[in-house]
């Protein structure tokens, strides 16, 4: 049978040359991607958008990656599970600052300062409400915070699923607690499956430390140690993703102001997760503040405004039903306190340092003055 995938119309010598050329060009492209641009994080640090730390009385208040959360919580409570601490779930709004200057701190610092006890931020970029729910559930197995602050962002309703790093939060206690509620049950299943291959789940299980895994880890480690091109593949991959993302935006003329459609399934899952987060707080007798995150209003927001208004109303009703405090802070940060992402694109999510101060103090005020 003729192999339609064949390129044998060309002589073998030429095909060998094309293989070698392809390999050389691919390696060159990888090298260029790793060395001629800066990563987004580096750009943030060097340019006008920065990633802010928050430190108060020697305690680092913000954790951005899942495994960090353990350590931060331990430091904040000094290892004592009953120490007074507030927990603020969130996304990049609480650690990314436009028009960044060295030393700028996030809202967590200003809230802690005003409250007199640490307000610990468990911040995951683009976190969904489902992820907040998992973090909250895990949190309650570790500590009883004085307050749980849950920012809700219309954008985050488009997110779904749990990131791989959340596996570390899937302790037996967390999973067991989550299984007591419908949305929690599904998330617990999802959390339990992180890192499990489909084939493995169906029975074709490798032994925990199969030869394959051991040798693969060894080769990966050795190759990474000896070849920076291999070790930094992640950087090149991230840059490719950004480039593709920009290319898509260019082709479809997508801008930060383009209207973002609601994805019904994801919206439902996230709102179910919010409802159960509030139930959970109530069950643990932890006071809870839910606020609508600040939004930029000098240009029309990228939402369908009627959908946005309906959603805010829905959150408010939900909070009232669950005994949580609700605050609509979407107009808290004035126009002049917003900025541009990396000095270029209009940014509806992150604001300048002044905005962080306003937000921190406003939230602290709400916690100090419950209705």
């Amino acid at each position, binding site marked *: *049978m003729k*192999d*339609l*995938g*064949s*390129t*044998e*119309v*060309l002589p*073998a*010598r*030429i*095909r*060998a*040359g*094309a*293989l070698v*050329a*392809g*390999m050389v*060009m*691919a*390696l060159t*492209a*990888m090298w260029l991607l790793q060395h001629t641009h800066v990563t987004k994080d580096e750009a943030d640090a060097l340019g006008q958008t920065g990633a802010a730390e928050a430190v108060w009385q020697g305690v680092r208040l913000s954790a951005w990656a899942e495994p960090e959360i353990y350590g931060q919580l331990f430091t904040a409570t000094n290892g004592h599970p009953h120490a007074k601490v507030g927990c603020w779930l969130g996304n990049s709004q609480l650690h990314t600052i436009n028009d960044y200057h060295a030393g700028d701190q996030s809202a967590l610092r200003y809230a802690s300062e005003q409250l007199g006890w640490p307000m610990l931020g468990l911040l995951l970029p683009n976190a969904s409400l489902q992820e907040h729910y998992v973090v909250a559930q895990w949190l309650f197995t570790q500590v009883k915070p004085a307050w749980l602050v849950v920012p809700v962002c219309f954008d985050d309703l*488009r997110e*779904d*699923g749990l990131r791989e790093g959340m596996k570390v939060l899937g302790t037996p206690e967390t999973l067991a607690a989550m299984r007591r509620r419908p949305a929690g049950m599904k998330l617990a299943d*999802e959390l339990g499956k992180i890192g499990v*291959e*489909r*084939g*493995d789940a*169906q*029975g*074709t*299980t*490798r*032994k925990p430390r*199969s*030869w*394959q*895994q051991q*040798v*693969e*880890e060894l*080769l*990966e480690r050795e*190759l990474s140690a000896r070849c920076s091109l*291999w070790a930094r*593949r992640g950087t*090149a*991959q991230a840059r*490719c993703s950004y480039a593709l993302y920009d290319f*898509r935006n260019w082709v479809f003329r997508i801008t930060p102001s383009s209207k973002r*459609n609601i*994805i*019904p*399934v*994801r919206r439902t899952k996230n709102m179910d997760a919010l409802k159960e987060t509030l139930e959970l707080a109530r069950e643990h007798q932890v006071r809870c503040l839910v606020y609508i995150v600040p939004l930029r209003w000098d240009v029309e927001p990228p939402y369908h405004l009627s959908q946005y208004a309906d959603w805010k109303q829905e959150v408010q009703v939900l909070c009232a039903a669950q005994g949580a405090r609700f605050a609509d802070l979407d107009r808290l940060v004035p126009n002049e306190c917003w900025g541009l992402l990396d000095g270029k694109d209009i940014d509806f999510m992150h604001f300048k340092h002044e905005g962080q101060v306003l937000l921190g103090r406003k939230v602290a005020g709400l916690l100090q003055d419950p209705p």
Partner: protein
Amino acid sequence: MIFNSLTYLAFLLVLAPVVVFGPDRVRRAVLLFGSLIFYAFWRVDFTLLMLFSASVDYVGGLKIHAARDEAVRKRWLVACLLINFGLLAYFKYTYFIVGTAQSLAGLAGLPFALHLPEIILPLGISFYTFHSVSYTVDVYRRQEEPIRDYGTYVTFVTFWPAMMAGPILRISQLVPQLQNYRRPGGADVVRGLEELLQGLFKKVVLADTLGEIVDYGFAQPPGQLGTLDVWTLAFAFGMQIYFDFAGYSRMARGSARVMGFDIPLNFNWPYLALSPRDFWQRWHISLSAWIRDYLYLPLMGSRPQEHGVATGGIGAAEPPARATEARRNIALIGTWFIMGLWHGANWTFALWGLWHATLILTYRMTGGLRNGLPGWFRACGGWGWTIAMAMLGWIYFRAPSVADANFLLLRAFDPTRLRVMSLRENQYLVVFLFFIGMLALGGLYTWQSRLRVPIWARVTALAAANTVMFFCSALMLREVKQFIYFQF
């Protein structure tokens, strides 16, 4: 060991030169023990099971050949089949059989509970069992001489490029090459390396990217998916399984070729097929040829001599004159039912098989109607209908339950849910672009000989394609995504 790993690339890099340049005895030893080590990288204990299965057929083949009495020959054949299929049934179908029995007993008001031990499905068991059984049957049919050298026989059954997920090899396709080894030329090595690269790209870049969308989509409650979602997921999974399995098969072929062995093509642009019959001559060719020769034709009372082993297609096999229409149809349905269950121990797979039986039967019955249509219309309509039906059929293959699959299938034709979109915009875009890309590439390969392209342009295009494949595969190779077909 799986192909899409550093471990395998290192394994091949070390062993292939020894196979090619080593003396005969060393080459044979490396092929045999290399295959066993390859399997042991998954689990050492199950290597013994594979050896046992192969040994049964080795002994069986010799006994069948030596026996003069037809009844004795038949007894040996039955014994070999019982042992091989018994092992397959135990490891693969115990849960399914017991679960079905429990359901039926429950319906009859006689519920019972049975606690089964944990049964791990040995990787590749469906494949090496088929390798081995085809040998015994061929010896029984006097189509092949038995292999007297145990090492050669075990190497045939466990030959590492084809052991885990095919192509399903026949004795005539490999053993002569093992016995009369021919060193690969430069062209073979280049072609082998090209196939390895193409296969790796299909798996780690295309299949795994689509896999994330598919896993997400099929994990959603079916009721929340819209019409477009169902079609998108059906196409996404159809492409994922194609890239996954065709990628594996191409790496298998490439691995064999760099060592000087030629194993048959297993996929040949199936989504360009113009009819269901054509589809099964292009998809998993070695399996459909096997099923045709050892199941479908015997069910029709025919023998497989007239068909080449390298061509697949159940629907294409001509029935003997004495086979009635009814017998043909029953044989077809029965074959597809078993073919479905071979893929997995679940009713969803059986229904997937029956779906394809229905497609082929419909195709047969509408032959007269089609003949009256203009050629171009027949080709376009045939392609559109075949690909749409093949893709929808994958819903049964991927959905977790029959109920979910039925629901999704109905949802695919629900006009009231057209505007419900539950995936991210990017996910629709990725599936659409992959589909267009696959068709464009398929068209390019199909018509490349007719295109008048200067050689420099061909070389540039080939180098550019190699660059993209190498670059993306190197970036995305990670530990360790199993191939979908390993679970079969």
